[in-house]
């Protein structure tokens, strides 16, 4: 195996899917790549001055402007006639929420930029607060379960649909549990003449609380339960879906994570688990995940 373009020695938690995501993305993209990142775990764990884990050119400015910064990079690459891959890698906080205006502008202007969101479904860098990506019933530090609360009361924001509404020509979801699929999607996205968006399910050991060593298993269960369908859209058309042979009940995925612990204790648990199962069933029907 070739040397990774994300050097070892970064400071991410053991059991974090973020560096795994970056390595898979960079494996596919190769060294002729520039990466732009918003503020978040990624930036904090890979670039404590004077150290850097990045073996490709990398720039960070602020939490909510990575797509705008990347837009400036892109116009200069074009102006100088450079054929360099340009990738934004950011978490769900910057992607779904605070950076939405900047992302919308970048998508709408049609820059040739691949935006990869490592989606760990909450604001992990600041201590596991709810984001627009946090799924239904998840316990976070700002949507805690309690005597009168069952965690996050709202479903996850459908960010791929928002990208599609901007007519982003390549939109996909991916998972670190399916690295071949993820790398293929990155390569395909980089061939796109325009913006592309890939959302990667990225378990966070601190925020989700699971046993070390089960990160990949969890990511696989998210796909196999139907809660994280692997999809691929080209020019707005659904062109690819990863089939699930025999869908696992969502409980198998949820019970391994501390963030859903309250659902397995209280009286309302069975009802809420049923509602989460309904979300998975709807995905299975919508994307025809089962043959």
């Amino acid at each position, binding site marked *: 195996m070739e040397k990774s373009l994300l050097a070892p020695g970064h400071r991410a938690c053991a059991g974090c899917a973020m560096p795994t995501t970056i390595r898979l993305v960079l494996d596919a993209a190769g*060294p*002729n*790549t*520039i990466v*732009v990142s918003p503020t978040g775990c990624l*930036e*904090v764990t890979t*670039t*404590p*001055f*004077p*150290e*850097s884990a*990045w*073996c*490709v*050119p*990398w*720039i*960070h*400015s*602020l939490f*909510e*402007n990575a797509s*705008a*910064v*990347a*837009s*400036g*990079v*892109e*116009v*200069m*690459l*074009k*102006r*100088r006639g450079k054929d*360099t891959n340009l990738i934004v890698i950011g978490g769900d906080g910057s992607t779904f929420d605070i950076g939405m*205006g*900047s992302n*919308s*502008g970048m998508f*709408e*202007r049609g820059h040739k930029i691949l935006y990869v969101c490592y989606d760990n479904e909450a604001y992990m860098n600041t201590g596991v607060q709810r984001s627009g990506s946090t799924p239904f019933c998840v316990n976070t530090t700002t949507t805690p379960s309690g005597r009168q609360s069952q965690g996050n009361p709202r479903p996850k924001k459908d960010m791929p649909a928002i990208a599609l509404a901007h007519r982003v020509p390549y939109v996909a979801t991916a998972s670190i549990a399916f690295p071949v699929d993820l790398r293929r999607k990155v390569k395909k996205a980089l061939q796109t003449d325009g913006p592309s968006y890939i959302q990667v399910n990225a378990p966070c050991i601190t925020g989700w609380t699971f046993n070390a060593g089960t990160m990949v298993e969890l990511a696989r269960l998210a796909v196999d339960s139907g809660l994280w369908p692997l999809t691929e859209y080209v020019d707005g058309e659904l062109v690819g879906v990863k089939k699930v042979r025999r869908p696992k009940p969502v409980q198998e995925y949820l019970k391994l994570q501390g963030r859903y612990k309250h659902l397995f204790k209280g009286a309302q648990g069975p009802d809420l688990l049923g509602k989460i199962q309904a979300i998975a069933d709807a995905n299975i029907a919508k994307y025809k995940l089962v043959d």
Partner: protein
Amino acid sequence: MSEKTTNMKVVEGSYAVAHAVMCCRPDVISAYPITPQTHIVENLSQMVADGDLDSEFLTVDSEFSALSVLIGASACGARSYSSTTSQGLALMYEVLYNVSGMRIPIVMNVANRAIGAPLNIWNDQQDAIGARDVGWIQIYAEDVQEAVDATLQAYKIAEDAQVRTPVMVCMDGFVLTHVYEPVHLLDKELAREFLPDYKPANILDPAHPMTFGAFADPSTFTEFRYQQFEAQQKALVKIEDVAREFEETFGRYYGGLLDGYFLDDAETVIVTLGSVVGTIKDAIDDMRSAGKKVGLLKLRSYRPFPVQALRKALKNANCIAVIEKDVSIGCEAGLVTDLKSAFYNSNIRTPIIGFVAGLGGRDITIKDIKKIVARAEASRKGIESEFEFLNLRTEIL
């Protein structure tokens, strides 16, 4: 004035500035429309559309994105330009610090305007003065010609290897952006000679991977800030040098850090920034005819704040009136506070009276200036009020 090197035309201030920007040859321009900045960026868009300006013009979703785009472009080696005002500058606030902290030499015209609430589109300088601590150099223009010339000078200052600090060229909204007056438009070739192409030492390049925008912990953060502080001290020299170099090439000079009008023998000195200088000069002409020894100190560079130059220029005054179009709600106003602090540890004990005037576009007249001078002169016998709002309409309070 060197007529052979420039052609004089009656044009709108915004066009003149856009023309100056064209002569600076930015690779990337990004801006978001906001009154009264709009004519500047509309003119630039037309220059690009007509092929007169070879720049990438990015229309974006906000001022926040406009300045952010320029960070990415500059990191790839672009000379970059933006323009904004008021609420737009406020929306950029976080990015302003980022640009200066990353030592990116962006130049931006600020068409000075009030900040709401209440909403007000007219001129004052609350926007830029409120952003005095963000690490940008701030140059204030008296008239359109100065705004034009300062824009070209700004790139030379910003891109200097010792300075590497972004510059705001501040020009009063409407008063200067929308006025038509005779201007020496810059000569393209002379501008090129004066301002060579931008060649930064470090850029985002896969052949030489570098990390931009790392985070700094307590063991290094202070030193980053100190270096910015030092760069602004070096800019004190550079601003003066560039003004002199500009004079050699274009034949115009109106002070580097500051300029005076009947300053040398003045007993009462008015200190101010921006376009109100014109009115003050007329008022001084009147007062001088009446035998009053009144003079003016026009501050061009507010950041860096030229403490030594101010001490020297004001040492003979026996009373000082500061007129400014901003207020620091809770403690006087920007310029008067800074000026007092510049004198505190010197042996100058001249009374300094601060006047807030012209907020939200209210006119400042010759009569007002004379009133201010009379008020300041009275302070020699003892300061009654050291800070006041000029012409308060007490009947509506």
